[in-house]
């Protein structure tokens, strides 16, 4: 998992709506849905992220019980890649900035 650790820098920036601070990491969130099997969601976390069984199950249970889980973090481009891959597996995934 890639984390950006650079301290935020105060800059004057135009207040456009889509502006984002480049050093604020993004996260990929997987949402609970009533169709995907718990074992399948665990499998996807192992297969795509190469997480070990324990971590994959922990994230799956968080999705199941809390309705969602942040499963990866990194740059916007990395999260776009993760979300696209998870959609490929049929999981309900979104990306957002980690505020």
């Amino acid at each position: 998992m890639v984390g950006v650790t650079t301290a935020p820098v105060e800059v004057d920036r135009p207040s456009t709506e889509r502006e984002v601070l480049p050093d604020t990491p993004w996260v990929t969130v997987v949402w609970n849905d009533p169709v995907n099997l718990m074992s399948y969601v665990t499998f996807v976390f192992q297969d795509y992220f190469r997480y070990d069984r324990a971590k994959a199950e922990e994230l799956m249970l968080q999705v199941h019980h809390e309705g969602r889980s942040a499963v990866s973090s990194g740059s916007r481009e990395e999260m776009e890649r993760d979300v696209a891959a998870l959609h490929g597996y049929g999981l309900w995934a979104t990306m957002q900035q980690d505020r």
Partner: protein
Amino acid sequence: MTLAFEAAADGVHATLHPWAWRLRLYLADLQELLGPEPTVPDHPLDALAATLDEPPERPSDPALARLLPDAVLDDPAASAEFRRFSQDTLLTRKRQDAATLAGLLDSTEPQTVLDGATARSVLGALNDLRLMLGTRLAITEEGPAEEVDDLVAYSTYDLLTALQYELVEVLTGDRGGGGETVAAP
């Protein structure tokens, strides 16, 4: 009891013919929902021009919208931009997965040996079928939302659940034999 998927030294052994007609019925639905593969523009400039078109909208069919979900919550513009660059690839993958399963169902061999990539493709198609049927049957955590009036669809959804469960077990090494395991060391 017939197992649909079994781990073996040479891959995953798939035996789907006992359920082929029911799976084929809904696989045809899924393939229609995904639509045909678009023709590739002959000229690079045509491909470039296509990226300047309006981004694709969220599908109006709820089942297709579940297969191609929004990538950003509460931000239709950002989700549309995401669709512009990822939806074709996503649809291509889902069409390929569906074609892999269709090929398996059409095989005259009683049993087919799947390598890891093909097994994952079959798994993807089974999941897409469950998502399509689950959406149409309005499945909730407690099961179908209302009285089920389409018993074939509901029993096929249950069948798909069992098949997917089996295949996941085989791929994660939870079901005997010398099957591969996907867990990272």
